[in-house]
């Protein structure tokens, strides 16, 4: 059996929830839509992977019960922005081992906008609850504000450099039906935006929103006719890569990149696009650098010559920065967009002849920066006729 992604669905990110919607209806809607996309029925599903920050008190098995899914395999991820790649890896190995035949990987959250958000921040982890919340740190924005200062100093970057990254992603968002913010952004608007945590302004921080997405994995020959299955050539993950002794400018990807490319049998120069976990512009650049997609460490030149010009497409859905951060679904945003691109279903945003791409996850901010990182290399398979 050659496992592959054979279908997907994504709900439009929104900050205005429709009446009656909650996290469970969001997860249901994308599971049902993804199965239709794959030409399968709920009764075909025997594996379920879930990640959702706000699904509690229910767990994955509760969700399966409410969906009427009879499962032989289930997993629930709790690795922040790395949850999607983590769950995808588990699912591939389960299919490969024969533990399941059809697995749905679903992610989604309905985000609170107001005081209700505060308890989630406070209970995110012991370290953040005990060390940071009492300071009034306001969430990760403040931590990545200081990390951004370190990156600016280390690489000679300016606010305009980050602006070019954000503006490029907003331009991709204009062609992405599911993005939250799609209107064009100018450098003047970027530089004049309200400050959030110096030097970050609101365009540097992903807007919280509600959303959900699902992938269907099964044997490649179950892919609907007229579609190409999407293969995963390699997945690598890294957790607590530096014991929090570094400066956060390198992520865990720096420790797994060589093995990832070796296992994939292709290199960074073979990629047609990258969809990276973009909680902040600085982390897009850090991950590109760690993956050696920026071969010479010249972040400034890569922004100017590759990202701003679209010579190398990055975050073609608009990413979290324009698409919105929908909790668990935010972690899967890049992978869903990768499937869309490699199945050549991206409409106005389609990267011509896209065959290879890399997606990442990054997160689980323990104290000063993220402790979790993961990456997957994807390949468009042969279209079923």
């Amino acid at each position, binding site marked *: 059996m050659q496992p592959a992604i054979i279908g997907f669905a994504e709900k439009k990110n929104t900050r205005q929830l429709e009446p009656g919607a909650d996290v469970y209806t969001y997860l249901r809607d994308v599971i049902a839509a993804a199965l239709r996309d794959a030409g399968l029925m709920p009764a075909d599903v025997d594996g379920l992977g879930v990640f959702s920050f706000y699904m509690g008190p229910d767990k994955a098995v509760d969700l399966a019960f409410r969906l009427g899914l009879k499962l032989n395999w289930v997993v629930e991820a709790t690795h922040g922005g790395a949850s999607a790649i983590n769950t995808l890896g588990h699912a591939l190995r389960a299919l490969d081992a024969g533990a399941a035949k059809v697995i749905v990987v679903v992610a989604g959250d309905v985000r609170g906008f107001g005081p209700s958000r505060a308890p989630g921040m406070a209970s995110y982890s012991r370290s953040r609850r005990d060390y940071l*919340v009492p300071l009034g740190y306001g969430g990760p924005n403040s931590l990545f504000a200081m990390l951004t200062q370190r990156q600016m100093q280390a690489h000679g970057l300016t606010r305009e450099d980050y602006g070019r990254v954000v503006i490029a992603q907003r331009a991709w968002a204009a062609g992405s039906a599911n993005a939250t913010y799609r209107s064009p952004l100018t450098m003047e608007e970027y530089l004049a935006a309200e400050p959030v945590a110096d030097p970050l302004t609101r365009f540097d921080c992903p807007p919280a929103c509600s959303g959900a997405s699902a992938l269907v994995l099964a044997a490649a020959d179950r892919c609907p006719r007229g579609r190409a299955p999407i293969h995963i050539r390699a997945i690598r993950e890294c957790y607590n890569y530096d014991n929090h002794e570094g400066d956060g400018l390198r992520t865990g990807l720096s420790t797994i990149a060589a093995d990832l490319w070796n296992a994939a049998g292709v290199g960074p120069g073979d990629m047609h696009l990258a969809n990276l976990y973009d909680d902040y512009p600085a982390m897009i650049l850090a991950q590109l650098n760690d993956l050696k997609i920026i071969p010479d460490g010249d972040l400034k030149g890569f922004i100017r010559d590759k990202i701003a010009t679209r010579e190398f497409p990055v975050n073609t859905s608009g990413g979290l920065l324009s698409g919105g951060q929908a909790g668990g679904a935010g972690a899967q945003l890049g992978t869903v967009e990768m499937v869309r691109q490699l199945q050549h279903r991206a409409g106005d945003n389609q990267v011509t002849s896209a065959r290879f791409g890399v997606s990442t996850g990054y997160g689980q901010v323990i104290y000063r920066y993220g402790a979790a990182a993961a990456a997957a290399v994807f390949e468009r398979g042969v279209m079923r006729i």
Partner: protein
Amino acid sequence: MADEQELTPGATVSRCQKCRVGWVPLRLLCPRCGYDVLLPEKVHEAVVEQTTCVRHSAGAENWTPRHLASVRTTENQVLIVGLDGPVKDGTRVKLYERGMAMFGKAQ
């Protein structure tokens, strides 16, 4: 920053009783040597490396700007501390804590 009476001097690190490295946040095993006995000890001084002013927090009502810093202690731990107000990078601060949260006060 909270009233100074509420603060106790020093910031707690968990000190490995074998290799003597002090860690923040607190650990269960020493990441350096793997030893399983770590005891709390205080560090008292640090130098500011970066600062930020948190001007907005999503969902927070009546938010007032907060000043935070990333500081490096004399033992090389990097801590996130609360400040009374803006300070320049390179400023030497004395460390305090309330509960486990750490604060810096310019000397």
